[in-house]
């Protein structure tokens, strides 16, 4: 009896087991909601979603659609990372640049995504709207986090680097980059999730051909709730996998070059 209790306690201390338990709990809640409502037009069962996913995955178009959506969102995400970082460095070294860009970034942060998408549809060809929207969402997040990381770099370490004649490159590599990395990784994880949300919303509004957004739009038109759920699962899964791969990649590279602890 005692051994069994200890074993259970050890099991609950296992992070993987706890996560599995949480997933099982929410799947159970979902199934319960389905059994309560019992209208497939409002909510479909997890089993039906899995079944629909399996059916969809049999066609090449499913994989091509998922791949193209991912590429569009990654394109916007990567440009957001690059532009956000450049902007962060510029606004950190020049007060004037900060004063110029800060209001623009604040406006972008506060403006509803839908407004951007509709404006973008007017300004640029519709196939580029999802990437552009993801870019607009990611840039302020990266900018704000990296600027914060630069600001919070330990002044004592910067003095030490100056005194021991590190020079610019070594100071960036040895002091700034390791200080900024936790903020940058946080920006990447938040930005990745939001890039998917905004990018898919843009695909829905732009009705982009061969896109997950288009499939979601069709599921609304034809009231195919199972398709809506299935494509949503695809988005969530891809977002989580990409986020995991990205963080793992950054940590591996960062540890190799001693910029991540």
């Amino acid at each position, binding site marked *: 009896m005692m051994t069994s209790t200890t074993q259970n306690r050890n099991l609950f201390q296992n992070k993987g087991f706890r996560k599995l338990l949480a997933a099982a709990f929410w799947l159970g809640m979902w199934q319960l909601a389905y059994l309560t409502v019992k209208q497939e037009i409002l909510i479909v069962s997890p089993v039906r979603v899995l079944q629909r996913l399996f059916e969809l995955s049999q066609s090449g178009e499913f994989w091509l659609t998922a791949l193209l959506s991912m590429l569009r969102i990654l394109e916007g995400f990567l440009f957001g990372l690059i532009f956000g970082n450049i902007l962060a460095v510029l606004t950190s070294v020049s007060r004037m640049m900060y004063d110029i860009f800060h209001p623009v970034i604040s406006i972008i942060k506060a403006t509803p995504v839908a407004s951007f998408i509709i404006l973008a549809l007017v300004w640029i060809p519709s196939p580029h709207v999802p990437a552009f929207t993801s870019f607009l969402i990611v840039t302020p997040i990266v900018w704000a986090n990296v600027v914060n990381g630069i600001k919070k770099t330990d002044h*004592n*370490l910067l*003095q*030490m680097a*100056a*005194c*021991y*004649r*590190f020079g610019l490159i*070594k100071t960036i590599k*040895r*002091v700034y980059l*390791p200080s900024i990395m936790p903020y940058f990784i946080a920006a990447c994880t938040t930005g990745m999730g939001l890039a998917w949300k905004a990018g898919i919303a843009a695909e829905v509004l732009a009705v982009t051909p061969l896109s997950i957004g288009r499939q979601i739009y069709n599921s609304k038109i034809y009231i195919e709730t199972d398709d809506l759920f299935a494509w949503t699962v695809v988005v969530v899964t891809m977002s989580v996998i990409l986020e995991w791969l990205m963080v793992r990649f950054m940590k591996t590279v960062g540890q190799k070059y*001693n*910029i*991540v*602890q």
Partner: protein
Amino acid sequence: MEINHLTKLYNGKTVLDQFSVQLPSSGTVCLFGPSGCGKTTLLNCIAGLEPFDSGEILGTGNLKISYLFQEDRLLPWISARDNVAAVLVGSARYNAEQAKNWLQLVGLADAENRMPAELSGGMRRRVAIARALAFGGDLFLMDEPFQALDAECKEEMIALLEEKTADALKIIVTHDFQEAQMLADVIYVLDGPPVKIIDTITKKHA
């Protein structure tokens, strides 16, 4: 080296007020005084890390200055060895070898791969000493250099310091008078702020 009429205000408070002193080109000068009297600010001004409001510091322009800060200021994301190697100029392999040698001299040969967070206060201090010595220089600024070290270790570090910096000028800040007496050729007894010299003791290895 000459400090003439140095004045520095810090947050509206006068830390240095027309402070002047002449220092030799080698040997050990101890600045002895109570905490908060402005000794560290004076060292920062000499190191060029803090601007001053008026006055001048002559004779430091061509000097290579090595500064052992009051805090260890080790980079927390790299090992003890890499912290020492970071101040060296050369190939990565050469720097790593040199860093290992310096760590051996301060008695930390076994700790070269450990991160600063994995070291005790005394060990971190010794890494900081190894780093300052490895960087070398004509002028060593040392702010409470032997804090967190036990008596035996302190003696070893003093011997090492004297051996490796024989030709350099060392300005050591301390509030331990015994330490000052042991190390200094000249002790300036300070008070403040603003920093002023209230006594000068010339003493070689009492």
